[in-house]
């Protein structure tokens, strides 16, 4: 895993958790889809983006872990 990717991953997570843990309470809150408040939508949708980024990062990370071999 290159240094640039590691730094980008750390920046992404810092921004994501700052937004998720601190900023969401201060976001506007109109109803979307006729029933879901925007703050609730953000709480449900942003972890999906995070999960995708985590998958992407660790997909490449573990692809490089060819030397780690353990017999079950």
């Amino acid at each position, binding site marked *: 895993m290159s240094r640039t990717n590691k730094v980008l991953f750390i920046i992404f*997570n810092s921004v*994501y*958790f700052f937004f*998720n*843990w*601190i*900023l*969401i*309470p*201060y976001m506007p*809150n109109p*109803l979307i*889809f*006729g*029933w*879901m*408040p925007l*703050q*609730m939508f953000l*709480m*449900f949708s*942003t*972890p*999906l983006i*995070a*999960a*995708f980024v*985590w*998958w992407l*990062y*660790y*997909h490449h*990370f*573990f692809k490089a*872990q*060819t*030397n*780690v071999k*353990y017999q*079950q």
Partner: protein
Amino acid sequence: MGVDQLIVVGILLYSGVLVYHGFRSFKETSKSSESFFTADRGVNPFVLLATTAISVFSALAFYGAPAALYRDGIGFFANTGGMVAGLLFVVIGYRIWILGKEYGFLTPVDYLRSRYDSEGYGLLVAIVLILFILPYVAMQLIAIGDAVSVTTHGFMSYLPAVALATIVVSLHIIGGGMKSVAWMDAFHFVLGIGTLIVLVTYLTLTYFPNGGLAEAVNIIMDDPELAPLLSHPGPNGTFNWQGSLSTVLTAAVATVVWPHIFMRMYVTANKETFKMMSWALPISYLFVYFFIVIIGTILAPAILGSGVTNTDSIVSILSTDYAPPIISFLSLLCLFAFGVSTADSLLLSASAMGSRDIFVHHAFELKGKSVDPQRVVTFGRILLVILMVLILIIVASRPAYIVDYAYSLSSPFFAQILPATVFGLFWKRGTKEAAYTGTILGLIVTTVFTFFIPAPLGFSALVWALLANTVSYVAVSYVTKAPAHVIDRYITRIDSIIYSGTAVNNSVDHALSSLNERKDFKG
């Protein structure tokens, strides 16, 4: 036969299946502690995902989370911490797994005792974790006992219900150890999610036929008392940024080092499983919580209004008074799923720490005596019987000092091994003295801010405890020194395995050099 009797028959059938399932693999899991406590480190990806996700959610999550959402609004969703557990499970878990493979670790105590090269610290961690597992497990079973009594309208009263739950859960683990626990958790995971979907679908279609959730939300928005539920900071002003951050740190960040979740890192079959956990664990949490949030912030307020005084009962009110008996029974099974999965996992980790890390380690290993692997499993099973009796006494008598006080300290106390665990994995300066200081200070700060002084600045006791724990750990590490051989063994070596494979290469080089230096070797 009436509905209440049918529900009791259903519970007895479920209990029978649970015990049978446990004892089905009795022989197979008796061969070694690795088989009994970690299922031979061979749990497949879906089962690991299910057992991890459902073990985090307790019986009180099924009743307590919708209740908290009903009281304080959508801000309580911070309880999931942005699904941080998914990331932490890989960041911490991969190294823990490698350490387990390299050195045979099975429990959090194994790792912490070795990393800090301290029998005393290992003993301290083991005692604290085991002591506070008991009230946590007891509360799961008390919740089940209460729910059975309410759902069957007293036909099966609290005492026989809670005794049945305790005995069944204990026998299930005694029978098959981690293998039974993990597979039954997978079933419970499907059962729990399935029941939540059924409950949400039934209530929505039955009570809001002309618009579904949109109709329910309109009812809430038209009521000035209920409308604040659907925004931050909520009707009681709980979830400003301090409240949200406190909830995240209290409920989410440390779950990865709870003893039963910590042990899940050792049982992983292969490294690819961690890749899957990075995205699947957050999504599975999200899936479970989506329905819990819908129940707590939309369906319950729209159906029940704002007049419910005993908010902890909203799920049981919805499932018994507003739904047919089959839904009541399913909800009860869902509570079993959440409660049993947490209780059995925690009891197994208590048994592993008590039998291996305290009894076997101190009575045999430290005295240079060897112990038969099968005997370790026997010790673990005997300890489970002793724990079962202790828990039976607790759930029968419901002493206030356990139900009210010890339980509220359980999660925060489990969390106090987080700094020592994380720094121990990544920071070469971390020392035994720092681990002692941080953990003990964290335990003291948690206790003081929970019972004696209100925690300042709107943050929870756990936030202050983790801060004190971390700061003191770092400070003490700078003025003390970690032994070089320990750092080499538990950090440098693991770094080289992960980042370059040089550990393997070094071993080969060393072997070849030794061979070349042998005078009698004719290459």
